[in-house]
């Protein structure tokens, strides 16, 4: 008599209304006991049709909506859009504007990494960390408010330069905030990065080898945690990065703990970049005049620009046909590979209690996938 072994499998939907998901996303898991056998991700809850909306607005009207594509880290969007238009139209950006753009991008990277520390710590049950790191991130949002007028969506980087110059006393405030955040890092080490429970829970979770990571299209801090020192700021330089001095931190293990520690090292590098920018910024204008925006026709052409956001490689492909509105803007978010099939590949074979931690450690941000 043949023995039929019964497998007890059931489906679990970790759906959009869930605190263990970063943003508004859904994972459909098939479980056998506590082990995950199949995983399917489902997105599209945040779709607004950005690429279509951008085709119906003038070039200058688009800078108001383009920052809303990625919610925690909006400045790479404005930067990519401005640089794509400048490359097609052949506009030069003054050197002071390049330094100011670098400053805004690095401050946004620090704010996004502080947010990620809080999110990752929340998945293992340490809720003191988000209370501290998100409150410290607010100091950086105060700096943005002083410079651009808004806390989250700045609408500051535009084709030709930036919108306005530093207000009085701004440089001193930036240095004060950088000193404050640097003084908080020993507290974070005590609480999270040297915590024995984090090492027990995050070591070996979501492990990727370097060949797998390159095959799956992983970029950003996730790839640097597998051992390859690849960074768009060094490989494909833009703005003021060729004139600045910084390192690319890497680790070799490729698991959730390594990704978190790479982000911590990047935070320290970003603080040093901000200090260099403030000390060495040259004088000059901040905006090169573009023609009358309501009648401006950008010549025909196409451009593919990339930048390094806090989540990975962020790219725009823009095509213009010589009119007043863009013909096609294609947004390649950084999480479009991380959140869809890298997450599915890593979830299979892991356990249900680690599913949430894997998503937060990859830092997959759903608005970039759905646009």
């Amino acid at each position: 008599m043949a023995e039929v072994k019964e497998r007890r499998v059931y489906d679990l939907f970790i759906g959009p209304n869930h605190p263990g998901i970063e943003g508004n996303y859904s994972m459909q898991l098939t479980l056998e006991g506590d082990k995950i056998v199949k995983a399917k991700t489902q997105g599209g809850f945040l779709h607004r049709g950005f690429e279509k909306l951008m085709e119906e607005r003038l070039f200058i009207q688009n800078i108001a909506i383009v920052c809303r594509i990625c919610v925690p880290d909006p400045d790479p969007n404005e930067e990519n859009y401005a640089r794509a238009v400048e490359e097609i139209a052949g506009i030069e950006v003054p050197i002071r504007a390049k330094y100011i753009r670098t400053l805004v991008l690095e401050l946004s990277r620090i704010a996004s990494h502080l947010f990620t520390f809080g999110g990752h710590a929340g998945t293992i049950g340490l809720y003191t960390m988000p209370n501290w790191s998100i409150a410290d991130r607010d100091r950086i949002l105060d700096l943005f408010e002083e410079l651009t007028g808004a806390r989250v969506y700045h609408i500051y980087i535009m084709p030709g330069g930036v919108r306005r110059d530093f207000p009085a006393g701004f440089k001193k405030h930036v240095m004060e905030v950088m000193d404050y955040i640097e003084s908080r890092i020993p507290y974070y080490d005590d609480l999270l990065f040297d915590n024995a429970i984090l090492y027990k829970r995050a070591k070996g979770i979501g492990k990727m080898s370097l060949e797998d990571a390159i095959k799956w299209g992983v970029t950003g801090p996730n790839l640097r945690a597998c051992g390859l020192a690849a960074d768009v700021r060094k490989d494909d330089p833009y703005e003021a990065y060729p004139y600045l001095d910084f390192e690319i931190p890497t680790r070799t293990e490729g698991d959730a703990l390594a990704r978190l520690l790479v982000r911590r090292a990047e935070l320290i590098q970003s603080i040093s970049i901000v200090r260099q920018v403030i000390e060495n910024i040259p004088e000059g204008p901040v905006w090169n005049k573009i023609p009358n925006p309501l009648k401006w026709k950008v010549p025909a052409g196409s451009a593919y620009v990339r930048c390094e956001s806090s989540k990975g490689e962020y790219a725009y492909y823009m095509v213009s046909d010589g009119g007043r509105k863009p013909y096609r803007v294609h947004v390649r978010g950084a999480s479009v590979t991380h959140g869809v099939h890298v997450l599915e590949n890593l979830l299979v074979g892991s356990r249900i209690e680690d599913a949430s931690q894997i998503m937060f450690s990859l830092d997959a941000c759903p608005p970039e996938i759905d646009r």
Partner: protein
Amino acid sequence: MEKQVTARNVWERIFTKLNKRSLWMLHYCTGCGAIELPPTMTARFDMERFGIMPMVTPRQADILLITGYLSLKTLKRVILTYEQMQAPKWVVGFGSCTINGGMYWNSYITIKSLDQYLPVDLYIAGCMPRPEAIIEAFNTLIKRIDEGKADAWKDYYRNYDFYKENQRKVLGEFETYVDIKADAKRFGIV
């Protein structure tokens, strides 16, 4: 004719006074306005001193916060969630996208006016509203609950056909698992 002070009235007043100081908000980030919620919940602006805490399941939550625009796919889940919440419940529309469509007014997939599909108690203007504005809105809601004016949830039972028709027009036929007509009879509405 003066209002009779019955035992039920006194209990209702005590219940309102206790309820308004312990409103639990559903932890559901429906749109991009949700980026200003963690600063409101954490140490700098600290919403918990008013008694407002995030809650993960709709069965035990009081406030549904629609943070920003609603794509059609999320609208279906929001309606299912709203009908699972227990009365009394309050809906707060966050940002200008719930009022008239906001920046995405010519998008093919976001809804333009939230109160066609759900009854709304309070709107917060802005894109996006600051944490101070969110706290002021919650204080206004607490005051309204105290005065007894915040009962838009009864409107869902009274005008269920209107809401159901609008939902069907954008989403097609779909099944919610709550029997609204039976609930309405139990509350004595309609």
